[in-house]
C-alpha cells in the first residue's frame, strides 16, 4: 500500500478543486472497492479526498414530479429500500439488492458503484504481468488465460474485462442521466455514454473527466418502469457477481403487442450492455416466447466467446427470454 495523504472536503466545489490541484488524487466514498484495490496495489493514489460527509445522499423527486434524483453518496442499501425507488423503479431496487452483501451495500455509494472497477483476475492482482487496463501496453492476460467471467460483447483484443455492477445494468435500462461537476460547472452524461468499451484504451473505464465529481443520478420518468425485472444468474445463491444478468422492462397493449421495451445485459461486456438490437426486433410484435428468443438471437449474433466463457452466449439468450417472459407476465 502506497503512502497517501487524506483530507476531507467541505463542499463539492472544494472537492473538485482539490482534485485538479494535485495529480493522482482520488475521491473516497464508501471505500468498498477503492480501499481493496489500494491494498492490492492496483490503485496507488497519492491523495484521498473523503467526500463521505458532503450533503449528496438524498433521494428526491425531480421538479417534473415524475422522475427521481439520487444523490451520488446515497448508500446502496438506502436507495434499494427507499419507498420512491421501490414504487417507481423497482428494477433498480432489485438490482441493488442482488449485488454484494448487506454489509457492502450499507457502505457502497451510488457514485462509487458507477465507478466500480472490473473483477478481471488479471487486473485485480498485480502479480500478473499482463493487463492493459492496469498497465497499458503490457497485454491482456485473460485473452489466453482463465476467462470464465469475461466479456462476449463489445470487447477488444486489448481487453475482455466486464463491468461487475448490477446497479449499472438497471441504470442502463432506465436511461439514467449522470450529473457531474467539474471546475467549469455541471454537466450531464447519459448512462449509455458514461461507461466505455475497451477499444485500444481499456485503461479508461468511463467518460468522466479526471477533474469531475459525480453529484447525482437522475432517473427520468418512465411510465412502464414498474413492469420490470432484474434477473441475475450467478454461481451461488447469494454474494456472487453475475455471470449474466438482464434488466428488462416492457409495455404492451391490450392485445399483447409490445409498445415499449428496454433490455440491458450485465456480466457480458466492458459496460452495461443495452440490447438495442433485441429491443428493435421486439417493437410492435406480439409478446411470445419465440419472438423473445429471436430477439435474443439477434442481440447475441455478434457475440464471441473464449476458452472458458462461451457458455455465456447461450446463457445470455436464455436469460433474455426468461426476463421478458417474466415482465410480460407469461411465467407460471
Amino acid at each position, binding site marked *: *500500500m502506497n503512502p497517501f495523504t487524506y483530507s476531507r472536503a467541505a463542499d463539492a466545489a472544494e472537492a473538485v478543486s482539490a482534485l485538479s490541484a494535485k495529480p493522482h488524487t482520488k475521491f473516497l466514498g464508501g471505500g468498498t472497492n477503492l480501499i481493496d484495490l489500494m491494498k492490492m496495489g492496483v490503485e496507488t493514489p497519492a491523495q484521498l479526498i473523503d467526500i463521505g460527509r458532503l450533503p449528496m445522499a438524498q433521494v428526491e423527486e425531480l421538479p417534473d414530479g415524475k422522475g427521481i434524483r439520487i444523490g451520488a453518496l446515497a448508500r446502496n442499501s438506502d436507495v434499494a429500500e427507499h419507498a420512491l425507488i421501490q414504487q417507481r423503479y423497482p428494477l433498480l431496487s432489485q438490482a441493488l439488492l442482488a449485488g454484494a452483501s448487506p454489509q457492502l451495500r450499507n457502505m457502497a455509494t451510488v457514485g462509487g458503484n458507477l465507478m466500480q472497477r472490473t*473483477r478481471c*483476475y488479471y487486473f485485480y492482482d498485480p502479480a500478473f504481468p499482463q493487463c492493459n487496463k492496469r498497465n497499458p501496453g503490457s497485454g491482456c492476460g485473460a485473452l489466453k*488465460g482463465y476467462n470464465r467471467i469475461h466479456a462476449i460483447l463489445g470487447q477488444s483484443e486489448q481487453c475482455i474485462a466486464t463491468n461487475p455492477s448490477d446497479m449499472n445494468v438497471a441504470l442502463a435500462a432506465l436511461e439514467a442521466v449522470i450529473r457531474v461537476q467539474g471546475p467549469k460547472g455541471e454537466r450531464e452524461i447519459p448512462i449509455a455514454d458514461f461507461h466505455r468499451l475497451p477499444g485500444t484504451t481499456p485503461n479508461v473505464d468511463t467518460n468522466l473527466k479526471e477533474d469531475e465529481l459525480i453529484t447525482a443520478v437522475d432517473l427520468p420518468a418512465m411510465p412502464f418502469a414498474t413492469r420490470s425485472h432484474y434477473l441475475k*444468474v450467478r*454461481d*451461488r*445463491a*447469494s454474494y456472487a457477481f453475475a*455471470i449474466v444478468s438482464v434488466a428488462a422492462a416492457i409495455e404492451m397493449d391490450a392485445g399483447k403487442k409490445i409498445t415499449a421495451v428496454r433490455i440491458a445485459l450485465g456480466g457480458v461486456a466492458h459496460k452495461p450492455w443495452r440490447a438495442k438490437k433485441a429491443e428493435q426486433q421486439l417493437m410492435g410484435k406480439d409478446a411470445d416466447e419465440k419472438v423473445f428468443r429471436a430477439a435474443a438471437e439477434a442481440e447475441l449474433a455478434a457475440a464471441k466467446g473464449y476458452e472458458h466463457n462461451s457458455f455465456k452466449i447461450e446463457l445470455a439468450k436464455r436469460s433474455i427470454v426468461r426476463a421478458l417472459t417474466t415482465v410480460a407476465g407469461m411465467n407460471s
Partner: protein
Amino acid sequence: MSATTLIGPARSRVDGRLKVTGAAKYSVEFEVPKCAYGWTVESNIAKGKITAIETKAAQAVPGVLAVLTHLNMPKFKEAPKKEGGGGGAGIRNEERFPLSDDGVYYAGQYVALVVAETIEQARHAASLVRVSYAPEEPLLTMEAAVRKADKPKKNNDTPVQINKGDVATALKDASLVKIEQTYITPTETHNPIEMSGTIAHWEDDQKLTLYDATQFVKGVQNILARSLGLELENVRIICPFVGGAFGCKGAVWMHVLLAAMGSKVAGVPVKMHVTRRNMFVGAGHRTPTRQTLSLAATKDGKLQAIQHVSETLTSPVGQFTESCGSRSTGVMYESPSIRVEETVYPVNVSTPTFMRAPGECPGTYALECAMDELAIALKMDPVALRLANHADNHPTKNVPFSAKHLREAYQLGAEKFGWSKRNPELRSMRDGDLLVGWGMATATYPAHKMSAAAKVILRADNSATVQCATHDLGTGAYTAFTQISSEQLGVPFEKVTFELGKSDFPFGPVAGGSNSTGTVGTAIHEAAVLLHKALAELAVKDSKSPLYNTKIEEIGMVAEGRIGIVTDQTKSDSYADILKRAGRDSIEVQSEQKPPEENKKQAFQSWGAHFCEVKIDPLLPRVQVTRVVSVMNCGRIVSAKTARSQIMGGVTMGIGMALTEETSYDPATGLPVIRNLADYHVPTNADVPEIDVSFVGEPDFAFNPIGARGMGEIGITGIAAAIANAVYHATGKRVRDLPITPDKLI
C-alpha cells in the same frame, strides 16, 4: 457414571459466551509489547532462479527493521526432511526451508520478508522489493509432468497400491454389467474464517514463545526447536482458540519459520498474519484429482470387480499425497477383486496438504458416483445396490468391522427422506417448472487412534481442572472434553475446567484424522482411573473412611463425586471428604503418553448415508440443494450439539465442493486466479438447506474406552456424490467434473 448411551448430553458450548462477545483470543490477537510486523514478497513465476533482488528502496522506508532474502537469511539448523504423522515429530508438508536458496519451485513462493514497526510500513516496503528471475518452463499439469509420475507404495505407512483377486479377468467378463468413467475434482482451498498467523517472541536468544494458529501445538514446538537449535522446553506454543482449520493448520508452513527467524534478526517480536490472498498458496490446498472407476457386477448387483485409478498432484518441495482409492474403494464394498492404483505428479504449484477427509472425500465422490451409474445400468435402486454389496468384513484386510451399523444408516436415512417415493426415471420429478432430483451416497471415514496424556487437578471443593495440549478448531472440543472429563472423573460438568492449546500441557496429538475426541478422551479416562486410585490410596489408610483397609483393586467410582467398593456400593466415600480428612486442598495426577494399543483382529471405521434433493431451473440451470438427510454411525456421540454441528459443517463444505468451490490457475504463470472470498465460492446461507442429522449404532468400546470413533471429517465424504447423483436424476445429464456450475448443465 459410565457413558454407555449412544448419544451424550446436548451441552451448549462452554466457550460460547467468550466467542460471541469477542473475548476469545486468537493467535494474532495476543498483545506482545513492541511487536513488529512481517510482510512477504512472493514469486510471480512458477519455476526458475532468482538472479537479483533489489532491497535498497525497501530498507529505506521508515520503520523497516529487516529485509530478508535468500542472500542474508540465517540458516535453519536441520536439513529439511519429511516429518510424518501426528506422533509428536510435527508435520512439514513443505520440506524446503523458506528463503533457503535462489530456486523458485512454484508461483507465489515467498522470496523475501520485510519486518517493520507497522503493518503499513512493512506492506509498502515489500512492494518496493524488486526481484529478477531467470525463468524456466514450469510443469503445471499432469500431462506436462507425466515423466515425473510416481506410484508411491505407501502413504503414512499404509499401502496404497492394492491388488486383491483378478480384476482384469472380471472386467473382461461379458456376462457382467460394467461401467467405466473418469471423474475430476479441482483444486479446493480450505478458507477457514481465521487466516493462519503467528506472533514470534524471543524472550532471550535461547527462549522462544509462539502464538500460533495451529492444529498441533506439540508438533510446532518440536519443529521449531529442531529448526532453530533450541531445547524443546525453551519453545512454547500458545493457541487457545482456532477459527477453523480443516487441515490447513496441521503442518508448519513457511510463515511460521519466517516469523521466528524474522523476529530473531530484527530483535523484536514479529507478527505475521497470512493474507487471505496468500492462504491460496502458503497454507496448502486440496490437490485436483482425476479418478477412473471401473466396476463389474452380476445382473443381480453383486460386485465382482472394482478398479480405482487415481491421479493427483504434489509440489516439487513436498511429498504430500491424496490417497483417493485406498481410502474409499479400499474399505467400502465387498468384492472378490479390488484394484487400487495411485499416481502422483510433482508440478510447479504450491504444496498441497490435508483438507477435511484427505483421500476419503474425493475418493468417495468418484466411487459413489460410479455406484450410481452402475445402479442405473443394472436398473437397480441405488440403496439396494449398496446393501447388496455391504462389507461385513474389511474388504482388503479381511477382518470384521467393529460396531458397524451402515445398514441401519441407509434404512433410517431412506425413511426420513421418503426415498420410497422416488421415481427412478430421469427428469420425472418436478416442482412446478423446476426439475427435482433425489440422490444418495455412502459416507465413510476411518477411526484413527493416536497417543495423548492428560493432567487432572481435583480440589476439595469438588472442582477439577483437566489439561492436555490438544486443540479446539471451532469444533466444540472444549465442550466435548469438559463432558468426557465430567463423566470420567465424576465431577459435575459446571465444575470442570478443561484447558488446551499450550505446549506446556501433557502431550496432545495433531487435531487431524478425526482422532481428538477418542484419543484425548482415552487420556482423560486413563487419568480418571489414576485419580480414583490416588483417592482410594488416601481413603484405605484413613480410619475414618468407610473404605478403611479395603483393597485398592476393589475400589472405583460409584457415583458422581464418590469412590466405593464396586461390588458393594453401600461402602463409599466422597472425594471432598477424603481430601479434607487428609488435609489436602487438591490432588493431582497425570496419565502417561504411550503408543496406542493396536487391535488387529478388527477394523475400525465410521459410516454414514447422505440423501439429498436438488431443484434446478431447466432454462437457467443453477443447482439448489433443497433437502439433506444424513445418518451417521461413528460409535459414541459424546456431545450431541457439537457432533450435529460437525456433520452440518461437513455437509455444507460438501455442498461447496459439489457446486461452487474451485481454485483455478492461470495457465501461463501458474498463479491462482482465485484468491479471495468473493471469487472462491464457499456456500452462503442461501445455498444451504435444513440439514437433518441423525446417529445410529452403539458406542465402539472395542476401539477405545470412550466408545467414540470421531466426527470431524465423515460429514464431507459422499455428499458431493449424493448431490451429483441427484443432479443426474433431475436432469439426465451426468456431470463428472466438479464443481457442477450452471455452464456445465446448459
